[in-house]
């Protein structure tokens, strides 16, 4: 049955033969070059320019511009806004994800659509809506101003605008993860006599902590960098309601290029830090975040 006289001439792999589910090498190289070239022009160049312009007259000038009073007050305000809006959004995100994934109720799809709504509304329209609700010439706004608690052109308005534009971030990250994990572990904890809070803190939270952190990171980056919605509600009062992005605009329009780009560089560095942390999370906790990336 075996023809042993036929000697195995080691066949040369012909040039046309290549792995079936792959493009040829020149095609691969071309596509990689196109992708990297496009990304360099579109994304890397603007990033590089921020730092180049900030350092155009030396690091000393750049640092000095960051210690000007309008810069320090802008940094302080942005930190305060983030410190309020991010935890609020985290609590909302957890509550919404818990409600949506642990219970069955009518109108769930509609609720999710409502939560996602801020993603598809222009930040300027969001700011406008807040002005119309809380501005001095509205019913609620007039009363609030009269009671000494103005919202528009003040900190609360900036916080509300920041929460609006980051509204779905945490919930969006948590919902797919919690759907994937199901309800069995919580049900087990309950049958073992744990209270609702105890179940949440000892069973649910450890299971979602990395996804929660991931959502909080994205939420924070967006909250600190929001421009359009904040521009509308803040009134852009120098030293009082000018966040970092608003101050960047002011400085830029006054042709204070180094000062504007130095402040921009701080935000860009924050963005890069966010990306780095996000990437680390994606490597280390791919299992938990896998559900997120699929959606």
């Amino acid at each position: 049955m075996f023809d042993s006289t036929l000697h195995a001439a080691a066949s040369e792999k012909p040039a046309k033969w290549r792995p079936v589910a792959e493009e040829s090498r020149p095609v691969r190289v071309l596509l990689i070059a196109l992708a990297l070239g496009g990304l360099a022009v579109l994304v890397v160049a603007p990033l590089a320019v921020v730092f180049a312009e900030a350092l155009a007259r030396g690091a000393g000038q750049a640092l000095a511009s960051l210690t000007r009073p309008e810069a320090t007050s802008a940094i302080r305000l942005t930190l305060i806004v983030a410190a309020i809006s991010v935890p609020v959004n985290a609590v909302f995100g957890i509550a919404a994800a818990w409600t949506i994934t642990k219970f069955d109720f009518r109108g769930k799809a509609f609720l999710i659509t409502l939560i996602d709504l801020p993603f598809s509304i222009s930040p300027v329209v969001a700011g406008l809506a807040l002005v119309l609700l809380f501005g001095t010439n509205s019913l609620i706004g007039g009363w609030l101003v009269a009671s000494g608690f103005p919202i528009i052109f003040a900190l609360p308005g900036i916080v509300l605008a920041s929460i609006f534009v980051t509204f779905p971030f945490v919930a969006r990250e948590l919902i797919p993860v919690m759907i994937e994990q199901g309800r069995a572990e919580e049900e087990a904890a309950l049958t073992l006599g744990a209270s609702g809070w105890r179940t949440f803190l000892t069973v649910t939270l450890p299971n979602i902590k990395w996804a929660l952190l991931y959502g909080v990171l994205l939420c924070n980056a967006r909250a600190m960098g929001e421009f359009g919605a904040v521009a509308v509600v803040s009134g852009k009062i120098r030293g009082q309601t000018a966040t970092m992005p608003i101050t960047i605009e002011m400085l830029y329009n006054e042709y204070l290029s180094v000062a504007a780009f130095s402040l921009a560089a701080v935000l860009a560095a924050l963005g890069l830090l966010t990306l780095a942390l996000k990437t680390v999370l994606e490597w280390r906790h791919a299992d938990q975040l896998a559900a997120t990336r699929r959606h």
Partner: protein
Amino acid sequence: MHIEIDEIAKSFGSTTALHPVSLAIPSGALVALLGPSGSGKTTLLRILGGLEFPTSGRVLFDGQDATGLTVQERRAGFVFQSYALFRHMTVFENIAYGLRARPRRSRPNRAEIGRRVTRLLDLIQLPQIGGRFPSQLSGGQRQRVALARALAIEPRMLLLDEPFGALDARVRKELRQGLREIHDSTGLTTVFVTHDQDEAMELADLVVVMSMGRIEQVGRPQDIRARPATPFVREFIDA
């Protein structure tokens, strides 16, 4: 078509999937490559189909060296373990795919494609399902559609990777019979991979028992059962 495997070896990096193996498959035979997972049977099937290139050795079709032929040139009807149906195409479009992929001058016209697909749907005894999507079919129906799709290109041989692996026991029995009938009516040289010795013994004319990248024994089912060549074969067919 007569297939000759001549001292084929294959390694992936430092792991050896196939030690040099040789095998002759007579024209029109229904052959089972039988063995546990990791025995090299799927690698051998993929080399026949042109999906892998051997590290050394040659493949001959009807005496002609076919080692360097690309997968497209081989015209081997291949049925994948997962069936690999195109889920965005209807059953009709799936079966017609190979005909439509031909260069224009050898491509049949629309009416001819329609006739051929209809004939194949009749052959697999599912004449009504041309308009459905794969997600709307049962496992057994998907397997038969995959078979029809492979037959549509008028293949020179039929290669099947665990064709019944994903099915439940009852459907499996039914489809075994179906494969036997299609083989007998087309007369195609057919090679299928299986880890199920009942399946191999019941269906095949010739059984090739493989283990650890080597061929342990080649023979007719009754001969292998009567005279296992090695302790491995004895143990494996008794299991």
